[in-house]
């Protein structure tokens, strides 16, 4: 089922002659996990702003083509109603924290308060999300006194609490330690299993390869490649174009270059592991 349809969409920011997005034609289906990758300034965050309705509701500028959210043109959506449909986790956690609340607990509840959710449900949702993100020990702290990574988790929590159908997530792990990063991907995967549609901008391609259903590679405002993680990441062209690919794929390419290729271009550690084990058992005679 179609969640977000982009039909020939182009966009220029106000006072800018360059196109931030150019001729984007793509359909995001409901319940799928989309990984959006590509160099900085390629238009990833602008794409997020677009599907979240911040373009054209907040950012002015020139928008052409059609953006349909659940079949309805984004221009016709009421901005605040759209924010209950689509949750947006900003790239910079320092931007997302409201700065007006004295405790993390209140910060997470802020969005729910604004929706007019009743108190009991609000408390229940906040407690659940606090547990999910393992931030129990932060709830009484002032959000302004948190470290970058802690802020990022709180920002994430405050959006999860809103229980939106579609989540647009812009580099949620940029400030996180590796273990917390793995936790966040697990949580996003769990949200997907609840039927939510996920659009995730990330530079950590190893994790994108492992979790996403579809990968979009953006370049100069357009979608340069799209497809399943295997389709996209096995393409060696990406490296020349300055796009990172998973370590497992790099390993495959290295071995291919030395005439000892795997059976196929592996894109996850699990695939590489299977291929190497097969080779080891051949050598050890048990295969």
């Amino acid at each position, binding site marked *: 089922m179609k969640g977000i349809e982009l039909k020939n969409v182009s966009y220029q920011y106000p006072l800018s002659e360059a196109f931030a997005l150019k001729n984007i034609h793509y359909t995001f289906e409901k319940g799928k996990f989309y990984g959006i990758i590509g160099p900085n300034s390629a238009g990833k965050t602008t794409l997020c702003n677009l599907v979240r309705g911040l373009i054209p509701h907040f950012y002015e500028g020139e928008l052409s083509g059609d953006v349909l959210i659940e079949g309805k043109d984004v221009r016709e959506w009421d901005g605040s109603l759209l924010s209950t449909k689509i949750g947006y986790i900003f790239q910079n956690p*320092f931007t997302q924290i409201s700065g007006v609340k004295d405790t993390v607990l209140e910060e997470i509840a802020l969005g729910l308060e604004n929706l007019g959710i009743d108190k009991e449900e609000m408390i229940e949702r906040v407690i659940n999300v606090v547990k999910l993100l393992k931030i129990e020990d932060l709830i009484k702290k002032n959000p302004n006194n948190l470290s970058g990574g802690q802020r990022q988790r709180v920002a994430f929590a405050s959006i999860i609490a809103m229980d939106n159908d579609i989540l647009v997530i812009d580099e949620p792990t*940029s400030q996180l330690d590796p273990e917390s990063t793995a936790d966040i991907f697990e949580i996003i995967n769990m949200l997907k299993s609840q039927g939510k549609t996920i659009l995730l901008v990330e530079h950590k391609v190893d994790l994108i390869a492992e979790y996403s259903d579809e990968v979009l590679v953006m370049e100069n405002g357009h979608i340069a490649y799209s497809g399943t993680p295997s389709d996209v990441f096995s393409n060696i062209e990406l490296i020349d174009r*300055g796009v990172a690919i998973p370590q497992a794929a790099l390993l495959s390419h290295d071995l291919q270059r*030395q005439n000892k290729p795997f059976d196929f271009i592996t894109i996850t*550690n699990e695939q590489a592991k299977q291929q190497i084990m097969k*080779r080891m058992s051949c050598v050890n005679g048990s295969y």
Partner: protein
Amino acid sequence: MGAIELKNVTFAYPNGFIANENLTLSINSGERVAIVGQNGAGKTTAVKLMNGLNKPTKGNVFINGMNTKDKTTAQISSYVGYVFQNPDDQIFNSNVKKEIEYMLRYLKLDEKEIERRVGRAVELTGIQDFLHMNPYDVPYSTRKFISIAAILAIETPYIILDEPTAGQDMSGIKALTTLMNVLQDEGKSVITITHDMEFVSDNFSRVVAMANKQIIADGTARKIFWNHDVVKQAKIKKPQIGELASDLGLSEDIILRKELVDLLINKY
């Protein structure tokens, strides 16, 4: 004595919250050190002790033998340059060039020297195209390079980069690598906080792991990544290739792709 020396340093914020406990660390001139560890472990607090932004509650910090307690932060910052984690905490000028020149003008350098230093810092960070823009009109990842350029221009012998890899794409990571190589060739010490384990294994021979306000390990990248307890406690991970080698039960302590490729070519 090392160029940067922390001796049994404890640091508590004015509200009594202890952020660092009993840190002892010695970093030499020209050395490159990565600081890794979980969020909230005290990494940023620790590096702020090195440039005098934080002064020890207990213990002492010495920079070139000077006790930071006896010096102002301004005095220390001409030896130790600190690039903030969040560039927005650092940048305050309305134009990129002015931002980079700001400290140089404060130091009352002559115009020619200012021009030379700005030129070099801009070249090293690759921000030529943004010089006449407002720093807040450029992407976050570029803003990070602006904040790096502003510190490089001061030409301190020791440089601290706080999470420079956050939000960087492949070309950004490459630019950081080149930048660190140039600084090392010039004999400068570079201390980098990062969560990017590939960046650590590719670029750092020495790694300091922190957990729960303390330094829990200090050694080669290989030693740190293959120490199960340290990895677990500091909430870090082996680089992907190390994970793979470990999953395969290889005992060779592999952390680099090249090492795994060589092993596979030669043995399997």
